[in-house]
């Protein structure tokens, strides 16, 4: 029988499929569609210290083989995530979840991670460093090795759970940033977040998104994501959650051959609420066709 299990910093998961943050809500929304315990795990919606409404609408635009989003981190805030969302999740999901944390200052990252550290159901903390660094003039924490390392250190100081730093692809050298995170103590790397893009409405002659720009994701970004996973795999020795454009079981295998120990699925869930389920169900067939009996064996296999 095909063995789909993989290991992320000591967290053994039954398969590598992890719906990506922002595309799977807090999980229970999908529980009405299928038993979400079939997932390896999932990463919940990016959570900040304060509740956030996010950007005005329109927040969504279409692209060739992909979509743009400018949600702006709408979330109920860490208090309600802990008091409402996690208890609700516990009723439908018996596995450890990945807590996606965002912030606009080192203190905010540390505060949220310290709070979430006490939650038993959280298996991994995924720290999204694509948000603008308010103090550093708005460039994101994820755009320099120094600021990425600073966030890593700040959160590692307050939690004993594995910390995965989630990197932005909008940089000149992502491997350098990943290496800085590893050196600062990160237990793993998640990549990629969305690529900044935009669309213009031809009739109104104005940007489609109220925020002007948004994050591109979906199959269009897959070759870029794959290259970045490849580069980061060469630069670090901690596990990688690879994502960006994955929408089929074959994509999962390609991502793992590039170096991903587990694979995030984002926009595909938006297009089709059953996408993650379909991918998990078709993985054994793809593995058989390609002569793979243990998925964990192929991680980084193309290097």
């Amino acid at each position, binding site marked *: 029988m095909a063995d789909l299990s993989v290991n992320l910093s000591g967290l053994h998961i039954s398969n590598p499929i992890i719906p990506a943050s922002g595309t799977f809500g807090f999980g229970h929304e999908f529980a009405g569609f299928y038993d979400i315990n079939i997932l390896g795990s999932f990463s919940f919606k990016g959570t900040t210290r304060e509740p956030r409404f996010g950007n005005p*609408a329109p927040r969504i635009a279409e692209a060739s083989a992909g979509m743009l989003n400018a949600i702006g981190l709408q979330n109920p805030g860490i208090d309600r995530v802990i008091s409402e969302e996690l208890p609700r999740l516990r009723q439908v999901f018996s596995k450890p979840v990945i807590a996606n944390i965002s912030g606009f200052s080192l203190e905010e990252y540390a505060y949220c991670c310290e709070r979430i550290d006490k939650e038993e159901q959280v298996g991994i903390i995924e720290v999204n460093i694509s948000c603008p660094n308010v103090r550093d003039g708005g460039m994101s924490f994820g755009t320099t090795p120094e600021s990425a390392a600073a966030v890593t250190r700040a959160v590692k100081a307050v939690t004993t759970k594995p910390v995965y730093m989630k990197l932005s692809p909008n940089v000149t050298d992502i491997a350098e940033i990943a290496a800085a995170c590893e050196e600062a103590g990160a237990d793993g790397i998640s990549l990629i977040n969305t690529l900044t893009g935009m669309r213009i409405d031809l009739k109104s002659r104005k940007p489609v998104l109220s925020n002007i720009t948004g994050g591109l994701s979906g199959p269009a970004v897959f070759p870029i994501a794959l290259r970045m996973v490849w580069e980061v795999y060469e630069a670090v020795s901690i596990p990688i959650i690879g994502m960006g454009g994955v929408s089929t079981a074959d994509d999962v295998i390609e991502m793992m051959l590039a170096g991903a120990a587990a694979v995030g699925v984002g926009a595909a869930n938006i297009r089709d609420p059953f996408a993650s389920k379909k991918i998990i169900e078709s993985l054994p067939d793809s593995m058989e066709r390609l002569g793979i009996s243990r998925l964990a064996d192929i991680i980084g296999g193309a290097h």
Partner: protein
Amino acid sequence: MKKNKFIVKSNRLLAKYTYEMELKGDISSIKRPGQFIHIELDGFFLRRPISICDWTASSLTIVYKAVGRGTEYMAGLAEGAELEALVGLGNGFDTQKSGEKPLLIGGGAGIPPLYALTRKLLENGKKVTVVLGFNSADEAFYISKFTTLGANVIITTADGSLGVRGLVTDAMDGLDYSYTYACGPEPMLKAVYDKALTDGQYSFEERMGCGIGVCMGCVYRSKTGYKRICKDGPVLEKEEILWQT
């Protein structure tokens, strides 16, 4: 919500830019008029949200305007084509609140969901008045269908080529009604909201990602908090509405 395969039973031009499509398949998840389906189209990443115009035991009808690449693609589909869609999305209109003499106001592509609503309200024994607004006579559709159902139908056109010249609000004066249901472009909804003398429900549009309440793509800031148009809407109560502009 259910995800189902549908077969195009018919797809015909109703009026300028406007098509009616009948889809055969499992409609069991439809609960109320005003709900919508989210249609996957070959070659397009995002689905297209279209209101359910009406339904029978084994099929549903949509009426849509070809305004962009996706709806133009739909217009080209032939009988027998297969479509996959999420069905029974959104809250839909609450027919319990109608009172005895509900007024339904629709503009252009906002008219379709009022058709099943009219049918339901008439089935409930209500006296239904429908105001249908179009740009001009060549874009008008479904007038006789609403009349045949048994509604009192008033037509307005912006250019006066059919019915009352002007906007739907120009036809509201002097009407006697117990409740207001409205669907159409946002400026029309605002005008109706400002003029309506009763409580009511207003159906909104927003660009959507998932269509099922997960991505926060379609959020609307209402007086009572954040609403996802796809899940907490598209129908909002009059007292919840906060005009954003």
